[in-house]
């Protein structure tokens, strides 16, 4: 299947989001480890980008120079990245079950060059935005007009490099890059507001020269609307702070942040699957 699906039907996009959640569940439970809850919080964001007509890509030519870029900066959401790439047609879905297995290219965190469609090596947090700037500067030199999307984690914004990149993106007047922050409010060891004072986030990004929007990160219609606004050229980079729920879609994971970095066991996975199928 080639790229550029432009699905307008809300119901269809919701179905894809649900199926991606099930893929994430299956692959992490099969692997026995991984970050399902951090993947689930960003499912709608990634669904809209890949299937809602935003990213232009050719699955048969993953390095097509004119493709739009999607950089998964929060690399621990690798299961989501692999799931969406498989569903987009970059590789067979059977590959998903090779996550974290010996001799498999499906690494626990994404490694550039191993799986088609993976744009960057991430997993140590903080690097994706800078990589995205590099892709934009490359576009300028090559006279290409693609758009770069970078998905950031909220805890990731504790990394100093994020703010180096924030400063540089506005310095270089980059307006072909849209960052989306998966603001699920939790980091590895607990609620972000308890572990590190990240707020006021909107003001921080604004003061770095960014055009800042907020969105409901699980509302496909709202995400569409905000991405449309964010993409408009205005001489500066755009940030969509997407409010999300960590573990979205599975009630007993949503209420328990200890699931960060933990896969569900078989029994939990069965319960989760039932919930997801009913959604």
């Amino acid at each position, binding site marked *: 299947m080639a790229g550029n699906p432009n699905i307008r039907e809300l119901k269809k996009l919701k179905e894809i989001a649900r199926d991606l959640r099930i893929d994430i569940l299956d692959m992490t439970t099969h692997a026995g480890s991984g970050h399902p809850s951090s993947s689930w919080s960003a499912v709608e964001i990634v669904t809209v980008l890949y299937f809602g007509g935003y990213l232009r890509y050719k699955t048969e030519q993953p390095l097509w120079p004119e493709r739009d870029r999607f950089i998964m900066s929060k690399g621990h959401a690798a299961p989501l990245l692999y799931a969406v790439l498989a569903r987009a047609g970059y590789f067979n879905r059977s590959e998903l079950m090779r996550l974290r297995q010996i001799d498999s290219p499906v690494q626990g965190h994404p490694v550039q060059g191993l799986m088609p469609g993976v744009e960057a090596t991430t997993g140590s947090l903080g690097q994706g935005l800078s990589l995205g700037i590099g892709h934009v*500067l490359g576009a300028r030199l090559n006279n290409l007009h693609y758009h770069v999307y970078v998905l950031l984690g909220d805890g990731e914004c504790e990394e100093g490099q994020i703010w180096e990149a924030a400063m540089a993106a506005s310095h270089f007047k980059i307006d072909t890059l849209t960052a989306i922050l998966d603001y699920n409010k939790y980091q590895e060891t607990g609620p972000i507001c308890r572990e590190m004072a990240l707020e006021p986030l909107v003001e921080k990004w604004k003061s770095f020269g960014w055009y800042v929007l907020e969105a409901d990160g699980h509302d496909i219609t709202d995400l569409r609307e905000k991405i449309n606004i964010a993409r408009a050229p205005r001489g500066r980079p755009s940030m969509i702070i997407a409010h999300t729920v960590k573990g979205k879609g599975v009630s007993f994971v949503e209420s328990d942040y200890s699931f960060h970095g933990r896969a569900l066991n078989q029994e939990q996975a069965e319960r989760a699957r039932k919930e997801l199928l009913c959604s």
Partner: protein
Amino acid sequence: MQLGEKAGLKPSKPLRDIFGEAILEVCKENSKIVVLDGDLGNSTKAESVRKAFPERFFNIGIAESNLTCIGAGLAACGFIPFIVSFSSFLLCNAYDQLRLAIALSNINAKVVGSHGGITLGKDGPTQMGIEDLSLMGGLPTFVILVPSDPVSMHWAVKVAAEHSGPVFLRSSRVAMPYIYNKLSSFEIGKANTVRKGNDLTIIGCGLMVAMALDAAAELADDGIAARVIDMHTIRPMDRDIIAKAAEETGAIVTCEEHLLHGGMGSNISRVVAETIPVPMRFVGLADVYVESAAPEDLLAKYHMTAADIVSAAREVLKVKGG
């Protein structure tokens, strides 16, 4: 006595000036080369490109992590980024970025660490790149080049641009006299024998190659014929030339402007141990930080002069002689 004088070497400009000329040259030849500066282009001399090709020169500011990843992003778009800053700042600040975005991703990016060694002198230990070779050693996909004179610097910059994959290149503030000429040839991973001899071998890199040649000239006065090898590529290391030197000369001294721990010498000793074990001695920086001072005073105080290489040679010859 000036460096290289005893060996009859012709003096040259500071190595960083040569780098400035070399990077401009490759930029003229290849429009895909871009230069990323950590706001030190006037010191590293990468600014030569800023004047000639402003559109291909990016000052990313004082932000080495960002600098490295922006370079990696440009590499992913088909450009050949030369990421240039002081070794100490670039490698120590952006090690994680060098590791993920360049080494593990195995992309075609070039990293130039300037002001390697202790001979930047008076700016002091905060600015000195005394651990760059060991740090780069921890990034397996990087080729590591250490030019020792103007000719090898020109080669290193050119070959870094031509080689497909990550390359680290060490530059220095200090002047290194001419060891090579127009007819000299180089190859990544093939060390150069710059003086013949069969009594012992001195293996050096960078500044210490000229120092080794001075030492060899002094040893020759006593009738000792020292072979001198320029290990311009630290990885991949030329195992054959080391094994041959061990076999034919039976004793090895290494010298480097770097910490002994994890530097060139310790890597050579692994090859010697695995091939033909012979007695060795190591000239370089012991486990210390040096202070702000004139380069020649630092080299003398920390036992990195031609005289120190001569002492090490006499010592290792005693062991060899049994």
